[in-house]
């Protein structure tokens, strides 16, 4: 009864009630990740002694040059990579427990769409696996495609869409699960500047409607500052946190915020936080 009632609630309020049930704050303590060397030599230290706290509903970006371990950190949170030492606690649970409870939504650098499925059926796929009833699936697919502006493309196959549209399908697919935590690994890096700016606004809009915890990996300082509540600056060799910059710009943020003094001084602050690059 309770379940049925929950499903029938409208999109927005359901999201908010969901976040209230589960504390999506993430606490990372003394996290280190090492990769065994390919030639059997010394281990490669990807992350050393990371300490980080992410509040529920916060939009956090991980920035840094290649090799700083930002993707590794995201993957460790997602349980796609095992830590060598240290702990990650997500609302008191381990990443593995959160993954098994299907509370993660992941957007990869590539759209990772199934070529043989239409756009609608791609968005639908994870929900099929989670055993969500068909009627509810159809409803959510429609909602999500409307949200990312692809409602009219539901019957197309991925190869008929542009790169930006494919990436939006990937985002819709991740959101359709109503994940408690959205993990995004350089989702816009392959897109042109115009598409990217549009998706920045869309993502901000989605986030403010759903109040999810979002962890966003990027190598663009501007992108990180524009989107985030908090920018975590990582430095390479070994990957470590060199600074955490709070972004207190008012929301909703328009594109013209990029021309303001405050924005640019925050960009400089992030840029100056890198060590040893």
């Amino acid at each position: 009864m309770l379940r049925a009632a929950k499903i029938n609630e409208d999109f927005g309020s359901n999201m908010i009630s969901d976040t209230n049930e589960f504390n999506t704050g993430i606490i990372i303590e003394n996290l280190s990740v090492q990769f065994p060397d390919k030639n059997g030599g010394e281990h490669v230290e990807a992350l050393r002694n990371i300490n980080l706290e992410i509040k529920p509903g916060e939009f956090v970006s991980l920035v840094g040059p290649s090799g700083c371990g930002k993707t590794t950190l995201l993957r460790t949170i997602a349980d796609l990579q095992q830590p060598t030492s240290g702990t990650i606690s997500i609302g008191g649970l381990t990443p593995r427990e959160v993954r098994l409870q299907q509370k993660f939504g992941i957007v990869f650098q590539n759209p990772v769409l199934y070529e043989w499925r239409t756009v609608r059926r791609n968005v639908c796929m994870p929900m099929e696996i989670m055993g969500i009833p068909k009627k509810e699936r159809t409803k959510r697919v429609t909602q999500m495609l409307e949200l990312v502006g692809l409602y009219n493309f539901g019957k197309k196959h991925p190869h008929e869409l542009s790169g930006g549209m494919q990436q939006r399908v990937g985002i819709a697919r991740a959101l359709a699960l109503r994940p408690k935590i959205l993990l995004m690994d350089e989702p816009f890096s392959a897109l042109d500047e115009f598409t990217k700016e549009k998706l920045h606004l869309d993502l901000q809009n989605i986030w403010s409607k759903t109040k999810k915890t979002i962890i966003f990996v990027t190598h663009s300082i501007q992108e990180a500052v524009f989107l985030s509540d908090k920018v975590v600056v990582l430095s390479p060799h070994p990957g470590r946190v060199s600074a955490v910059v709070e972004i207190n710009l008012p929301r909703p943020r328009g594109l013209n915020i990029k021309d303001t003094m405050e924005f640019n001084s925050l960009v400089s602050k992030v840029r100056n936080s890198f060590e040893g690059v």
Partner: protein
Amino acid sequence: MNGIKRFLTSRQMVTLVWVIGLIIVWEIGAAAVEQTKRTPEYVLPRIYQIVDSVFSQKLVNGSQTATEIVLSNASVTLVRAGIGFLIGSVIGFVLALLMNMFLPIEKIAFPYLMIIQMIPILGMAPIILAITKDIDKSRIVIAAILTFYPVATNTLAGFKAVEKEKHELMYSIAAKKKDVYMKLLIPSCMPYFFTGLKLSAPMAITASILVDTLQGGGGLGCMLSQSLKHAMSIYVFWQIVFFSAIVGILSFYLMSLVEKLVSPYKKVGG
């Protein structure tokens, strides 16, 4: 002008040039043979002679025309080849599935597959016949053996070609093994599976024809050797050669057609 240009570079044009080229080379050869041999139709007859024999009403073995002999014997061979092909496809697919699920099975089974594949059919056929003691069963078994290897290896390659990120997406939503296979691996291996089918369909037919030659109990292969040895009609031989080649090619296109109907993939642009 544009239409002509498009036609000249089209696939039909390529096929046309191919067929015309083959006919020209054949006819030059036949003309040369005609000058030197007493019975040139045993080496290389003119194409019109073969075509003529297809429509000829002359009885060549007392009761049947050449075409009737070919068609009646074709069904014996082709039906068995078809059954063997189906069995081989299923075994090949299941084997690929098992090899992908359990690494030890792959490690153990693969060398055997290679060995089976390396034994020439000519050597394997009499052994199979000795075991099954039945020419019909032998045709089926040989066709199945030749089919399952390309199907198994191609399908396995298809499973292994699935990108890591697609697996990670499944992992991140805690998908069960069954779902990973049903929703990811099996649909994505379809183009590979059909490549295996397209490779093995003509091979299954050739193998069945070869098995026919082992016994005098009918079938295309049997007629092939008899028409050479006995004074039946040499055109039965030539008809079978052409018929087999055409059926082999058609079996390939039949698989392409089945793929279009069955496979969830939509070709780019199609």
